[in-house]
């Protein structure tokens, strides 16, 4: 077996076109970095035969800032602000994943209050993130009103976050050893307002889009991902659960106070209604926990304390709205800066499912597939 390094040039060069089964009609089309469905900068190189897609070659890397290289020069606490900028729609879950890995590695204890607030805030952000997915699914398929509905509800949840966390998008709130600030006195009342508002709104979402025949026609058996193919492609989160595999880390490896809240993992057979139902489950979790936030300090480790990780590999994973985010921190035990940090991001693994689904469908179906995969590009490129 030989090691053969190819480049995109060779892949798309005319010689390849002539020699392979690429008949004369097939041509390359760039659904390139600057495209409405890209939600960022992702280039999908389509090999087209008329309107039928023969092959999709995703080319990420347009937002690759080298976060893993930067993490080697930052202490564990400084890395938290970089995790916000990877998947900015689930910034709190990203912070939580890194903080939890560091806490388990360094043996830092957190109390019940911290875990409850972390669970509540992460679940609220899951609702906010799925609301954006719902709005943008409508926008990508041509219906512009869901976008306005979705962003109205995102603003309402953002005001709840802003009051406690101070930020709208890049939170930097969950630190190794606790929370950056204690929750705002009016936080519980504000969250109750949000819950009261969001419950009827979800039925409105269903009425607006799910019942729409055009949308059903555009989405029914388009981009069907069977269960074993989804597992083989390393998909996680709503994409995997949509294919029928009930893998949800909140149940499989409970963290935070998820055992205390009763909720069920939403599993679809082939469809994609998984995220709509997950929003209701998340609201249910927040409802059960919002009244029982125990008292206690919001930080168990002094902010200035140096956190030195013992030598070895420390891996922790968490269920973000888009899938399983894993943080691997390798430390040589000598300095408080990690030797190597690797983020197993959900979007990077969900992206490649499009190469398995796409061959044979039409260009318009690619847009439906991309919208249902709900990708966030900086999370792919890091």
């Amino acid at each position, binding site marked *: 077996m030989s090691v053969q390094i190819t480049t995109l040039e060779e892949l798309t060069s005319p010689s390849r076109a002539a020699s392979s089964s690429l008949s004369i009609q097939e041509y390359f089309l760039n659904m390139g970095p600057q495209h409405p469905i890209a939600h960022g*900068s992702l280039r999908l190189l389509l090999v087209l035969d008329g309107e039928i897609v023969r092959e999709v070659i995703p080319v990420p890397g*347009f937002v690759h800032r080298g*976060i893993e290289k930067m993490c080697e020069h930052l202490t564990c606490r400084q890395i938290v602000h970089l995790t916000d900028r990877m998947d900015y729609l689930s910034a709190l879950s990203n912070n939580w994943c890194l903080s939890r890995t560091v806490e388990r590695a360094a043996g830092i204890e957190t109390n019940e209050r911290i875990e409850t607030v972390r669970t509540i805030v992460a679940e609220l952000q899951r609702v906010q993130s799925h609301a954006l997915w719902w709005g943008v699914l409508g926008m990508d398929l041509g219906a512009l009103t869901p976008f306005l509905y979705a962003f109205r509800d995102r603003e309402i949840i953002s005001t709840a976050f802003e009051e406690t966390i101070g930020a709208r998008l890049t939170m930097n709130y969950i630190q190794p050893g606790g929370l950056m600030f204690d929750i705002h006195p009016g936080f519980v009342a504000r969250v109750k307002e949000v819950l009261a508002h969001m419950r009827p709104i979800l039925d409105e979402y269903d009425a607006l889009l799910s019942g729409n025949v055009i949308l059903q026609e555009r989405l029914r058996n388009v981009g069907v991902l069977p269960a074993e193919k989804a597992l083989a492609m390393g998909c996680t989160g709503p994409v995997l659960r949509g294919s029928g595999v009930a893998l949800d880390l909140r149940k499989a490896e409970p963290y935070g106070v998820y055992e205390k809240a009763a909720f069920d993992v939403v599993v679809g057979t082939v469809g994609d209604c998984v995220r709509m139902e997950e929003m209701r489950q998340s609201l249910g979790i927040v409802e059960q926990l919002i009244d029982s936030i125990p008292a206690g300090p919001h930080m168990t480790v002094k902010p200035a304390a140096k956190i030195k990780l013992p030598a070895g590999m420390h891996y922790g994973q968490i269920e973000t709205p888009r899938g399983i985010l894993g943080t691997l921190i390798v430390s040589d035990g000598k300095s408080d800066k990690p030797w190597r940090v690797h983020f197993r991001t959900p979007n990077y693994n969900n992206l490649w499912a499009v190469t398995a689904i796409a061959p044979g469908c039409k260009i318009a179906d690619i847009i439906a597939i991309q919208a249902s995969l709900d990708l966030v590009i900086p999370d792919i490129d890091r």
Partner: protein
Amino acid sequence: MGVVLDKLPGLLEKIPGGGILVAPIDAVINWARLSSLWPLAFGTKCCAIEMLMATGGPHQDLSRFGVEVVRPSPRQADLMVVAGAIVKKTALRMRLLYEQMAEPRYVIATGSCAISGGPFMYNSYTIVRGVDQIVPVDVYVPGCPPRPEAFFWGLLMLQKMIRQGESIRRPGIRRKPVLAALPAGVTVQDIQERMRAPLEEQNVVDVAGAAAEKPWAKKVRQWVKKH
């Protein structure tokens, strides 16, 4: 400028007292441009969610300023909102998009990543530290991500610049208002008169010239020819 508008200032100068007509024409043209800015949706990162989507949402309504028509194609856009970090791979594409936009084109760099590389300034091997290495930027909106209100302030600054800064006498020459946002308490009189003239003069930008000598201008040509 168009065939007529190129020659118009010259003709009006010949007619005695014709120069007065140039100002109203400027006012009309600048008013038409600033109240119908069509942004090009070029968001790469978190700023895209704040700048292009949240501001377009119902709470912070972008259409109050006539900017809500977000065009995906550069052919129909005249305001490029750079929302998010630009890495070396994207810089080429962004410069090509800037070239493909029709004059007069404006650039707002939002977010500290676009202004100076922001949180990725150090130890990042692909980041371009500051979008003004690629395209001439008119308004910088700091923040990470900037609040929608900050983006509106930048938008109003741009509209003020268009209203005061452009004239058909010198097409493509943009005079950026130095005293656009004086810090609180500092009044014009505080800045002595001799200080103000050079500040105004030095802040005149020939957009085409500024775009030509950007480091990425040549790289884009080689890249397009190579492909």
